[in-house]
């Protein structure tokens, strides 16, 4: 528990300091360049900038504890409500992408390890290599060109068709879930055809990573002696692979999947920009370009906390899957 607390406090401190050393005048960002000297000083004090740095930090921590990240200059709203709006979009995209990567990547990696050196292994490694080395913006553009522009199988950029925008009252903020809960089938269909391309693209990248790691974990286990024991017992190959070898890589795999998931949750800025996806990556980038430091800091802290949270969660799963960790 203490480690978590210290980690989060460190995260706050670093982000706060970065915000303060940036060559951006927070006062000018609020009042604009043509304000008078008197207005400038008034705002300077209102923002608490006359206080010592440590006091400023303390006030900031206290506000953050209350869920208050300050106001966004760009949108004119509370940063917390902005994040509550943009984060579900990223969450939806990242979850779907990770699901895709796990469902295809894990069996592919296992198969590649078991059939090592055969054509299926070659294909798995080739797929992984492309996923590792292709820049995502290029694949994204080509994907849009082919599947949206030429074939017309999916919808283009954005979260949902323009006619369906704002129809569904948010519950969770995730459009796929909300439209289902509200029974809006047409909205769901439109949202699905919008999300499928960016989600598979992100999924492809996590697939490349997950299948490569699964393959190497499995290769290591398949050479273990307990695998020979399992075969001596007369078990089928399926039981040997999934019942024995795979059981032993679950722990390592959790770490890999958690990292891949956290990576996508951090907001894949490039993907979100190419697909005009109103997620947290795009939010932070736009805010940064508009000198909107409150929004940038708030977004960074939320992402950092999620990262810490996912790591805690995967540590908890360790205890569940590894008898030696108890």
């Amino acid at each position, binding site marked *: 528990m203490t480690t978590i607390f210290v980690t989060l406090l460190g995260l706050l401190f670093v982000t706060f300091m970065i915000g303060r050393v940036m060559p951006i005048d927070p006062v000018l960002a609020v009042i604009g360049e043509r304000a008078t000297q008197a207005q400038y000083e008034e705002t300077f004090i209102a923002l608490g900038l006359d206080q010592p740095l440590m006091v400023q930090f303390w006030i900031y921590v206290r506000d953050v504890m209350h869920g208050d990240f300050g106001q966004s200059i760009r949108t004119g709203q509370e940063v917390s409500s902005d994040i509550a709006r943009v984060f579900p979009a990223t969450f939806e995209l990242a979850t779907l992408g990770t699901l895709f990567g796990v469902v295809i990547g894990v069996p592919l990696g296992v198969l590649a390890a078991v059939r090592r050196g055969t054509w299926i292994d070659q294909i798995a490694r080739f797929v992984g290599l492309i996923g590792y080395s292709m820049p995502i913006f290029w694949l994204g553009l080509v994907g849009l060109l082919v599947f949206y522009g030429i074939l017309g199988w999916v919808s283009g950029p954005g979260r949902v068709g323009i006619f369906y925008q704002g129809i569904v009252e948010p519950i969770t903020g995730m459009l796929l879930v909300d439209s289902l809960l509200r029974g809006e089938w047409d909205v769901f269909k439109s949202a699905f055809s919008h999300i499928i391309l960016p989600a598979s693209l992100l999924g492809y990248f996590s697939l490349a990573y997950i299948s490569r790691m699964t393959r190497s974990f499995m290769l290591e286990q398949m050479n273990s*002696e307990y695998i020979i*024991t399992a075969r*001596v*017992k*007369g*078990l089928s190959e399926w039981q040997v692979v999934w019942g*024995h070898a795979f059981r032993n890589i679950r722990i390592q795999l959790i770490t890999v999947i958690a990292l891949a998931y956290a990576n996508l949750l951090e907001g894949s800025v490039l993907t979100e920009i190419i697909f005009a996806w109103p997620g947290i990556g795009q939010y932070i980038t736009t805010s940064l370009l508009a000198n909107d430091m409150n929004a940038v800091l708030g977004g960074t802290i939320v992402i950092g906390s999620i990262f810490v949270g996912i790591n805690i969660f995967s540590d908890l799963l360790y205890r569940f899957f590894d008898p030696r960790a108890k």
Partner: protein
Amino acid sequence: MIEPLLNVENLWVRFPSRNADFDAVRGVSFTLGQERLGIVGESGSGKSLTGRALLRLIQSPGIVEADRMTLHGENILHASEARMRQLRGGQISMIMQDPKFSLNPVMSVGQQMSEALRAHKKVSKSQARIQTIKMLDEVAIRDPERVFDLFPHEVSGGMGQRIMIAMMLLPNPKILIADEPTSALDVSVQIQVLDIMDKLVRDRGMGLIFISHDLNLVAKFCDRIIIMYAGRIVETCKASELRQAKHPYTLGLLNSVPNLEHPRDRLDVLKRDPAWRDAPSVSACQ
């Protein structure tokens, strides 16, 4: 003539490589009845691979060839993989060197043992549990109910090896291959583990193949001994007549073992003659 449990003629284990094939086992022949057969040899003499070849568990690219390899008269050289799975564990089983590595670290003792039984016998989970606990008791494990739920890292080496023995004997196989079963164990528990194994194997009228590099141990626990060198059998003899061995390699092995009752200042160094690689094997006792 009664068909022996196991009959092997001219067994070869070959690993093809780009330049020249490597022959790990080169034309080994022997039979096994309801007896305890020891296979002794130095590292790389092909004794372990002989054991694995009998289970057809030589990993590709390794190749197993033989003129004859039968179990109860059934050809196991060309048996289907499905048939081999029935035979493995069910008829012929194997114990390996170190229980730390040969038991699955994330499965409980009971889980692994029940699985071995249920792979061959149609029994319910609760029946499997009862039989497993009974078997743990037979290998002299105290408080078997508790051990049933332990994980391999929670048991000692000697206990682990007894669990291994119990697990492999659970489906009642006819042959047990023990591949260096005590080499990883503490000297003080070696004999204890071997005594338990020996008793179970004899009570059940099984055939035992005891693979080891420890000549004294093999002489103590076996009826017959095969000495292997460079993938071949150089000598076969009765354990009781080991002292009358003729082959210079066997004599070399015997002379390089220290003896407490007749201490010597200097032990002989084993000298190897390349000609042994291809010379025909000798038998001390015909």
